[in-house]
């Protein structure tokens, strides 16, 4: 997909996510909007090898959104891949619906349960090791939040993956610099994440996480990292695309008023 088309696809995803969230007034909009371009690059930029209609393909690349509060960001994409009927998007979080607030492994295209932070890198290392052992060539992509990098388990697994030379494991850190209670650098400084991952033995780089011009070359480093797992620090804006949510931690789990919904729809290009 050309860069223009990827941008259009990112707009589409934000629109779908906003509509999904507004139907039930549930979901984490800003967290999903900060990793929108990352997911679009993976699924539509030719990076993750996933076949339409075949969620169980043993050779598929694995994509794990470890920051489970953004689980919903995968749902419109998975429906678009014909993994389940699009009507499910309308039943998000509803009693008889397939799609929950956090990801459930029974959802086609979801690799594991999410919701608790700090599990995705270790789980991903498990997929990566299994691929190695089975002489399989799939890659495992794990999207973690920057706030998630406070979890010690992330670093246990980071050390492990580097030691095992799992260059089929890629971590993309959604560096939006916000957690629920405020700015990460003010609350407890995460500091130079690029160097932190590098010091754990990873090939590490930083990009603008909303720019396909920067994301695509970084993701194309997969397999060219001298046997090191790859960590991409994607600098992002939480709430990207809705100006009154951008960079504001209080919107983590809040729902907009009727007036704000109209403002947001206009900014996102959703028909009124």
């Amino acid at each position, binding site marked *: 997909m050309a860069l223009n088309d990827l941008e259009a696809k990112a707009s589409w995803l934000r629109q779908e996510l906003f509509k999904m969230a507004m139907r039930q007034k549930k979901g984490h909009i800003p967290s999903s909007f900060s990793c929108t371009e990352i997911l679009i690059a993976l699924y539509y930029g030719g990076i993750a090898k996933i076949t339409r209609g075949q969620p169980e393909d043993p050779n598929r690349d694995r994509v794990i959104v470890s920051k489970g509060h953004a689980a919903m960001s995968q749902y419109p994409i998975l429906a678009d891949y014909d993994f389940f009927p699009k009507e499910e998007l309308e039943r998000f979080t509803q009693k008889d619906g397939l799609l929950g607030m956090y990801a459930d492994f029974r959802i086609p295209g979801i*690799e594991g349960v999410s919701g608790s932070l700090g599990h995705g890198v270790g789980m991903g290392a498990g997929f990566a090791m*299994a691929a190695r*052992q089975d002489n399989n060539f799939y890659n495992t992509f794990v999207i973690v939040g920057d706030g998630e990098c406070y979890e010690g388990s992330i670093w246990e697994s980071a050390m492990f993956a580097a030691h095992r030379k799992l260059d089929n494991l890629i971590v993309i850190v959604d560096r939006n610099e916000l957690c629920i209670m405020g700015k990460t650098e003010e609350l407890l400084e995460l500091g130079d994440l690029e160097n932190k991952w590098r010091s754990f033995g990873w090939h590490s780089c930083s990009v603008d996480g909303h720019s396909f011009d920067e994301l695509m070359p970084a993701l194309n480093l997969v397999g060219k990292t001298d046997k090191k797992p790859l960590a991409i620090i994607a600098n992002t804006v939480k709430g990207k695309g809705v100006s009154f949510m951008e960079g504001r931690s209080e919107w983590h789990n809040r729902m907009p008023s009727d007036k704000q919904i109209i403002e947001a729809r206009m900014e996102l290009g959703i028909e009124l």
Partner: protein
Amino acid sequence: MNNKKPPLLMRDIVINRIFEAAKNDKDILFISADLGAAALDDFRDKLPDQFIHAGISEQNMVDLASGLALSGKKVFLYAMAPFLTARCYEQIKCVIASMNLPVTLIAVGVGLGYDHATLTHFTPEDIACMRALNGIEILTPGDAEAAKKIADVAIMDPDFRYIRLDRQGLEPAYDGGFEAVYDRGFGHIADGKNIVIITCGVLLQKALLAREILGEKGVNAGVVDLFRIKPIDGKSLADLLSDYDAIVTVEEQSLEGGMGSAVLEVAADHNILKPVRRLGMRDGYAVINGDRDSLHELYEIDTLHIVGAALGLAERF
């Protein structure tokens, strides 16, 4: 002079079975968080691709296991009991139990097994916390025969299991009879009439000795090895309880939520109302240096206290 050979360590029995099976099944993976064993040295040497050292990183070990199990691997996790349970409890809940993955947790040194290591290495809470997990099966082999069978089941029929191994080798409690009682989940290893003593693991031998002493005092006690703490075949256990006048449970576990609690739940659910004495770790227990026997004495879960509890109950009849 005692020339009797000490029994094989439980860990070596179990690891040897897994090692033998792993030679013919490359999907069997054994992961350790830096706990060794004589049998494991051979495993690491001969099957290096199937042994993984996770680092002293139990959280990573469990997360890793989930990815491997989701990829079709038969995963065995191995660590000291305190660190394979409470230390990474949230990981087990979120990425193993939630997806009911076929991962076997093999814990060494349950209860007071690491006697001299004291507080951090004791696990008076492991039964209480692990049995609250969704879908887990919990097994405590009481001798070598039981350990072999339990290992074989874990190999042949991988499931979400927690296997509680004693740190030391245990004297035989079954004479070829474990296989027959495996499905039921408990062994009625000594018959009786008045009092039934229910325990598992290392305390089986003390319960058997207590039974002997009680016999000399005219109390006919039976001994039950409740080796499967979860799920319990409640109907069968209730049938057994109803044949006795009173019940003594004894364990190296907290009285809140441990094995004795599980027995009471079964009794209540089946309308069995019998006098009960539960022996176990009481809240506020003191920590001292000493070997396992002296700890049993201190915590009043030794042979003498089992006898005392049973006699106290027998006075009522």
